[in-house]
């Protein structure tokens, strides 16, 4: 049926149809480049899936332990797990609060809307250097200097300043210029402009970034503990080194539930904010 309708007098449908454009050389180059990088990367890390088969019995043994978690670790409120969890929560809360407060100030210095050119041209590259180090690197440095939960708090605070300041500075860049012009015309100082026009305008976005880093911090404090920066990660490394998989499984279950709960809560709040 469709064949019949496409037929036109005086020519076959093939001649009417325009030729398909050939794939662009850039696309071919891009795909070849990606394949080349993948081959080199795979070679560099000795890519091989053989261990999945060879080592399967070992993993099966661990998984056997993991599906029988040590429930007493969860049900007993005075267990190591709950102490560590409370510590993790406290670290994340303090780091989010302090880091976000400082970040708001840094963001105002890092946008051309609120800061003089000399200031934001310095602030921006400094911020990108701070962001380029993973939170773990900061934790490693602080752990070498001081013990306890303090290095975790400091590392996450710096990490949060980097992220929140960047995102907020971008929001400030996009602020509606109308109120700013009105204030400029009325002779407002930089501080008054920031206080009256910029901060209220970016506040909903800022609050959603703060919730976002809080989410990240809960996850990150799992990681930070692995180098001894306090919190639940320290417990993970302890049980891993002892090969105490039933207790490790209990920790994993709790982390899983906490992370999902915080994700859902923060998603709900962020949707209401923006």
């Amino acid at each position, binding site marked *: 049926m*469709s064949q019949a309708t496409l037929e036109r007098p005086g020519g076959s449908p093939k001649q009417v149809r325009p030729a398909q454009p050939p794939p662009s050389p*850039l696309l071919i180059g891009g795909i070849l480049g990606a394949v080349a*990088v*993948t081959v*080199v*990367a*795979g070679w*560099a*890390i*000795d*890519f*091989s899936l053989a*261990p*999945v088969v060879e*080592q*399967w019995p*070992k*993993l099966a043994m*661990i998984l056997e332990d993991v599906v029988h978690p040590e429930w007493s670790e969860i049900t007993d409120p005075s267990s190591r797990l709950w102490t560590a969890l*409370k*510590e993790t929560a*406290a*670290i994340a*809360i*303090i780091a989010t*609060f302090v880091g976000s407060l400082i970040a708001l100030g840094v963001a105002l210095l890092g946008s051309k809307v609120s800061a003089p050119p000399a200031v934001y041209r310095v602030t921006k590259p400094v911020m990108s*250097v701070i962001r*380029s*180090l*993973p*939170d*773990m*690197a900061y934790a*490693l*440095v*602080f*752990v*070498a*200097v*001081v*013990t*306890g*939960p*303090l290095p975790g708090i*400091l590392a996450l605070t710096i990490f949060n300043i980097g992220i929140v300041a960047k995102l907020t500075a971008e929001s400030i860049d996009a602020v509606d210029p109308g109120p700013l012009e009105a204030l400029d015309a009325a002779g407002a100082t930089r501080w008054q402009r920031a206080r009256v026009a910029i901060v209220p305008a970016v506040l909903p976005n800022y609050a959603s970034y703060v919730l976002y880093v809080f989410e990240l911090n809960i*996850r990150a404090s*799992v*990681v930070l503990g*692995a*180098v001894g920066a306090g919190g639940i990660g320290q417990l*993970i*490394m302890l049980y*891993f080194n002892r090969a105490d998989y039933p207790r*490790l499984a209990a920790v*994993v279950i709790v*982390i*899983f539930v906490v*992370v*999902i709960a915080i*994700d859902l809560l923060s998603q709900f709040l962020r949707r209401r904010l923006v």
Partner: protein
Amino acid sequence: MTSVTATTRPKPPPKWPYTAVGLALIGIVLVAGWSLDDAKWERLPQLPGEILQYAGQMLDGVLTWPGAHPEGQADPELTYGDWWLQALKLMGESVALAWVGTCVGALFSFPLAFLAAANTAPWFLRVPVQTFFNAIRAVPEILLAVIVMLPLFGLNPMAGAMAIGIHSIGSLGKLTLENIEAVDPRPVEAVTAAGATWWQRIRTAVIPQMMPETVAFWLYRFEVNIRASAILGVVSAGGIGALLNRVLRGREWEWGGIMLAVIIIVTILVDQLSATLRHRILHGAEATAVAA
């Protein structure tokens, strides 16, 4: 006259909700701080000085001529240049495992995302696949590495690459399915009206629309994974993390400074390259030329 303007002016909105939220937040933070009984708060005032001193030593290490020999090392032949080369090699390994991990994540998340998007899959496929994505994202890479990958692959980069890869399936899957759901429905309707099968619809109307943004997300995820791969080394899953952990714990600040410098330089370079590529993919050649 003045009384008229005073009455016509609207009342400012009340401030007390902001004050209440602010006070509640400060209260929570204070309780959190008080609950950390082994935090050495009294050390806080000395820390900036100490950190600056160590940062100075790190900078010394970075700025020293690579041919010079560091003091106090067991091997008298060792130079700063050896430290640079070793850090570069390990960082290369971190980047390689991040790339392989991203490939694994992209490869698996791409087909799965079509089974999870509202406009390409029925609900009985969508719900389990979306739950699977969310569940994977909730497990940090380091846990995957410790529990599953290290026993399987041993203490080597494959363990890190697979941990990153599996974790990336969750985050890339979610982003890809959002891209699929955001496609313009009109081309899809057009090919459906022309009698296209499910597969033809995906191939001709959905993929061409969502591909550029999806590839841009892959590149972005690669940037994120480079940072994650630096972390995974700490549990000996490959890359620069293991040595960085050892060196900083040993307070070898000059050596550590060189390693951190390599991490910063390589991360920023890859970020810039990837940002340029993403811009080119999303906005085309002309816009990229103007931006550059």
